[in-house]
């Protein structure tokens, strides 16, 4: 495999992971614009513990994911008192605060950036990506996933059927942060150098776009969204000046023509039905 293809595949793997980080909260109706902040926590914590304590990368990823999850759980109760556009604004602010913290944290280089000593192998990143996707897929086959939809759809009815709405909301938010932490740690050990600016609002917006354009109803949607967003700019490289214009037009066209996202449960149902009727 060429170095270019490998680099694209690794970028794709990390984007697919963080797309799931945006998907879980959105499945429960939460627009999280602070995903990049949780990625930063995962990246810096994993980089710090592997640099300082010489831990293996796998333990670094676990520590980074745990740290992002812990911050999310602690902040979820006050944050999730808001909903809709106010929750989006609150998570946006949270992402900015996390970025600002790392910008001032001398122990990880502050604004000068932080070198990551341990470099993850291609196979480690692919294995981690596959593990995350397998776990999210398993989770999507459970009652938990059904309740995410129920809570997004009608919290009052969910509550009257005995579902702990707040618990489901907190879990959706913090599991999303956990996955963002994994994605951030992968990023750290792939690119070997961290700067707070890497985890800015634009990254959070992109992650949300993966999910919205891919579709919020299935696990497959965000994966496809991440593929689309990672590969399309590369495919358009032929015309360097115009590629971002074409790319933006693509996004607008997709939103206008298919606002529910590329993949919907209805689409998957039709595809499986056709396969069954053929067989």
């Amino acid at each position, binding site marked *: 495999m060429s170095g270019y293809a490998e680099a694209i595949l690794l970028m794709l793997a990390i984007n697919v992971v963080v797309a799931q980080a945006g998907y879980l909260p959105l499945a429960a109706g939460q627009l999280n614009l602070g995903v990049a902040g949780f990625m930063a926590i995962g990246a810096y914590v994993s980089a710090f513990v592997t640099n300082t304590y010489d831990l293996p990368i796998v333990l670094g990823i676990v520590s980074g994911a745990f740290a992002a999850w812990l911050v999310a759980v602690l902040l979820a109760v006050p944050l999730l008192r808001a909903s809709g556009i106010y929750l989006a604004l609150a998570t946006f602010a949270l992402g900015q605060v996390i970025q600002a913290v790392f910008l001032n944290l001398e122990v990880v280089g502050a604004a000068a950036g932080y070198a990551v000593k341990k470099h993850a192998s291609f196979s480690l990143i692919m294995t981690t990506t596959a593990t995350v996707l397998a776990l999210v897929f*398993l*989770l*999507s*086959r*459970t*009652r*938990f996933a*059904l*309740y995410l*939809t*129920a809570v997004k*759809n*009608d919290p*009052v*009815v*969910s*509550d*009257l*059927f*005995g*579902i*702990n*709405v707040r618990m489901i909301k907190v879990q959706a938010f913090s599991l999303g942060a956990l996955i963002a932490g994994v994605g951030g740690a992968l990023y750290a050990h792939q690119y070997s150098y961290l700067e707070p600016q890497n985890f800015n609002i634009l990254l959070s917006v992109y992650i949300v776009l993966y999910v919205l354009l891919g579709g919020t*109803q299935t696990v497959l949607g965000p994966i496809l969204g991440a593929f689309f967003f990672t590969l399309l700019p590369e495919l358009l490289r032929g015309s360097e000046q115009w590629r971002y214009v074409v790319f933006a037009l693509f996004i607008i066209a997709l939103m206008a023509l298919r606002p529910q996202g590329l993949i*919907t*449960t*209805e689409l998957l*149902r039709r595809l499986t039905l056709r396969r069954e009727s053929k067989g």
Partner: protein
Amino acid sequence: MSKPALLEFAEVSKLFGGLAVITQLSFKVDAGERLALIGPNGAGKSTVFNLISGVYPLSAGRILIEGKDITQMASRRRIYHGVSRSFQNIRLMEHQTAIENIMLGQHPTASSLSDLLTPYRLQRRSPWVEEAKEALARAKLAQYAERPVNTLPYGVRKRIDLLRAVMARPKLLLLDEPAAGLNPVETEELHEQLMAIHDSGITLLVVEHDMHFVDRLCTRVVVINFGEKIAEGTMDEVRRDAKVREAYLGAEVATEASDAS
């Protein structure tokens, strides 16, 4: 000592701001009854349901289930004490299938952590899916099982909303205008379905405008107007009640009607 009523509404009042919607309302529902709560538009019937299920807190009074005071109980806990309800303006998950919607009603009987995290959709025969399918089949709705509910006719969706409430195996089922918007055939099917639900040991409390439907289904009627109880008894008894006539027809017409009879 006699057994306490299944549901007791004890001098309940509810104010929204300064506006009294329910005033000193008391009534009881005994186990095994089919009781209707009727009254003109705006009488406070839906508010009564929202007070029982805990959507709104009371301003005064108490609500008891089998003698246990649930006035302060969180709305989420009440279904575990046997209170389940359907909704007047069908509140289903529109993009999910009939089965998935009905599965929401199974939550009170499947609420452990392992229930929450079992990947049931990978099982060949999930007991939950089977139970939901059986419930749909009993209601003669089997052909809609796998369809997203937003593609189904109004009457079918209405009955899926009802099945979901029954799935929680309540002692008391609150039905908010179950016959509204149904055609005569669907209304007849609903009547049979509700009688079958009642035969399985579930007590019914019904808010309904279709008096013919109420007359056939219910054994007893409580009439409220402006949040106060104005009559109680069998359908025939309340029909002869002057206050009820006045509430429904207006004072003058009621007098003329009773003069004529």
